[in-house]
């Protein structure tokens, strides 16, 4: 028997005939929709799939997508990128982070610029690779700049676990982990300071895939009940996304408002309890975490518990890390775009002052942001 390849695992979920079949079903079902609907895919991974596979081109006029804030580097405020920059420039420090961070500019520059300026910045695929760097550089301080949603949070805590248990003395942490449900609430239930409005046009959510593997679908239960927004947790492959869209449309047609799981092969109600316990053990919620483009969002970030302050770079280097807030660009309308109130091309600085090579707002930072996608795919988008 031939060995099982990775391709065998995803091929069915990219089958052109299945995608075409789902397209037909969605288009038929959408004719019965009582009104046009706006679906937010919260996660950048979904945005990527939707763009890569051109799924918007398959949908009828009355189904629209609002690209959500689920790209951890896009929403990183300049203040915290400056922290990474400053830490990386310290003598005898090696800053370690995930590759996605490299291009994102803070007010001082990006980590790519820091490296060109002499900083030792390393990129790892797995946080545990930090251990190898620490062993090879016993006389340096290794600072792990931790980013990401619930998906990557347990990987950071697994590293912390090893560092403490094996008594590594030269690894510190700067924690920037954020959580999904709190920002979903922020988008549909709080005032947008920029335009002084509670408005949003989000009718339903496509729940993230990998985040939900860790958290379980239970974190979305409040959205259908308390906020009247259906949620369908979907996988990242095109067939997953199309099936989830069909499930959402059917909910509207049948007058249901529920939490459903399309990504059943990986997501359970309770999620990964071991990972959740690790997070609980090392982290606690930050009262307010600032999101680029959205401002401060209550309870949406993590920091190390006070008993672990001797590995907390934010505390150890407190005297050199600036605390002053840096305002988002005045003309940037990322908040409106994320709430579905505006399209990227309605922004006055879109494609002019704000471009992928020199992003001003969060939605332009990575290819997963709505503005970057518009900029890149332009006239091929629906």
């Amino acid at each position, binding site marked *: 028997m031939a060995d099982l*390849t*990775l*391709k065998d695992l*995803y091929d069915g979920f990219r089958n*052109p005939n299945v*995608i*075409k079949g789902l*397209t037909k079903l969605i288009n038929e079902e959408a004719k019965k929709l009582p009104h046009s609907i706006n679906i937010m895919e919260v996660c950048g991974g979904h945005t990527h799939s939707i*763009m*890569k*596979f*051109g*799924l918007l*081109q*398959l949908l009828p006029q009355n189904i629209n997508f609002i690209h959500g804030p689920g790209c951890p580097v896009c929403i990183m405020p300049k203040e915290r990128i400056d922290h990474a920059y400053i830490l990386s420039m310290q003598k005898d420090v090696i800053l370690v982070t995930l590759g996605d961070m*490299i*291009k994102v500019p803070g007010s001082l520059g990006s980590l*790519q*610029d820091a*490296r*060109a*300026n002499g900083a030792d910045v390393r990129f790892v*695929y797995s946080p545990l690779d930090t251990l190898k760097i620490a062993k090879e550089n016993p006389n340096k301080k290794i600072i792990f700049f931790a980013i990401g949603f619930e998906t990557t949070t347990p990987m950071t805590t697994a590293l912390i676990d090893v560092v403490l248990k094996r008594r590594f003395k030269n690894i510190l942490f700067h924690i920037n982990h954020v959580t999904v449900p709190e920002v979903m609430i922020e988008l549909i239930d709080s005032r947008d300071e920029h335009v002084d409005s509670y408005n949003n046009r989000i009718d339903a959510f496509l729940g993230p895939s990998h985040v939900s593997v860790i958290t379980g679908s239970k974190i979305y239960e409040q959205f259908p009940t308390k906020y009247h927004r259906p949620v369908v947790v979907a996988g990242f492959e*095109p067939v997953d996304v199309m099936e989830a869209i069909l499930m959402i449309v059917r909910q509207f047609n049948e007058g249901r408002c529920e939490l459903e799981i399309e990504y059943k092969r990986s997501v359970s109600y309770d999620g990964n309890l071991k990972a959740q316990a690790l997070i609980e053990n090392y982290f606690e919620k930050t009262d307010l975490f600032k999101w680029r483009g959205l401002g401060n969002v209550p309870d949406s970030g993590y920091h190390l518990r006070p008993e672990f302050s001797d590995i907390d770079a934010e505390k150890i280097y407190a005297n050199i890390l600036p605390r002053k807030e840096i305002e988002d660009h005045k003309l940037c309308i990322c908040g409106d775009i994320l709430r579905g109130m505006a399209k990227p091309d309605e922004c006055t600085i879109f494609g002019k002052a704000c471009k*992928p*090579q020199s992003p001003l707002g969060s939605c332009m930072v990575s290819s997963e942001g709505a503005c970057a996608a518009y900029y*890149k*795919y*332009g006239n*091929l988008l629906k």
Partner: protein
Amino acid sequence: MNKQITLAMGNGGEENNELISKIFYKAFKNDILEKSEDAAVIHGGALAFSTDSFTVSPLFFPGADIGKLAICGTCNDLAMMSAKPKYLTCSVIIEEGFSTRELEKIVRSMKKELENNNAIVVSGDTKVVPRGSVDKIFINTTGIGEIQKEGISSNNISQDDVILVSRDIGCHGATIFAAREGIELSSNLKSDCASLTHQVQALIEADVQITALRDATRGGVSAVLNEWAKQSNISIEVDEKSIPVSTEVEGICEMLGFEATNLANEGTFVLAIKKEDAQKALDVLHKFENSSNAVKIADVNDEYVGRVVLMSPHGTKRFLDTPTGELLPRIC
């Protein structure tokens, strides 16, 4: 442009193009340089002339080493202008402490590949620098070749052409990345590093109407197609499912979030061939082991001039862009 040189500016993609045009083209401006071909055509069209530097890490990798790469790289640039490589120069910058035995191994690889191309090294230079000034060894080769067929140029592609690729793509980039990241693969993945001189000469001997050739090195097939779309003012429509990608490369791309079309190759070339000769070209290529799965991947039209459009098997389309950002560590 950035105040400092970043790694992204050497990626073979957008930032790299900006660096070249704003600094080097600006200073060195002349008609030959501005043609922006793989090799310059000089001496009244009789000779092709090209140079390339090699900094790959690791020095030895599955399928080849920096020595073979240094000869293939320059010979292939000459071959892309239909030239038979004749004379090469070889300059090396070696880090203090480098192993003599490894150096001999590298030079043996160079010798073997020179013989394969029927070319000779006629001049050279050696520098040894203090530890830390370079990473082990950097090699530059420059080559001159005799042009066998006039008029091959990436500025002349039209709707009368179709686009072929000589083999499955992305092997070199994927191999180097896996080697650098210490990803252990129980697979046959190896660099495609190979000389293309014989394939090109066979195409010429068969009298195939060749419009343009380019080896898909840094920036991969995406970069080649985008450069062609701009240089020839055409729109290139790629049939996504026809692009040959091995299971191993596809696996690495899925795991690490790459597109195979952005990965570097060192023995894979893209061809723009007159429609009526496409099958003839494929028949010639299929006779060589290294291009036994050559295939047509794209048509030319005028729908989105200057852009490359990827048509998906489920009927949607998107632009295939020039890669941006820092792609991979030094790969050639």
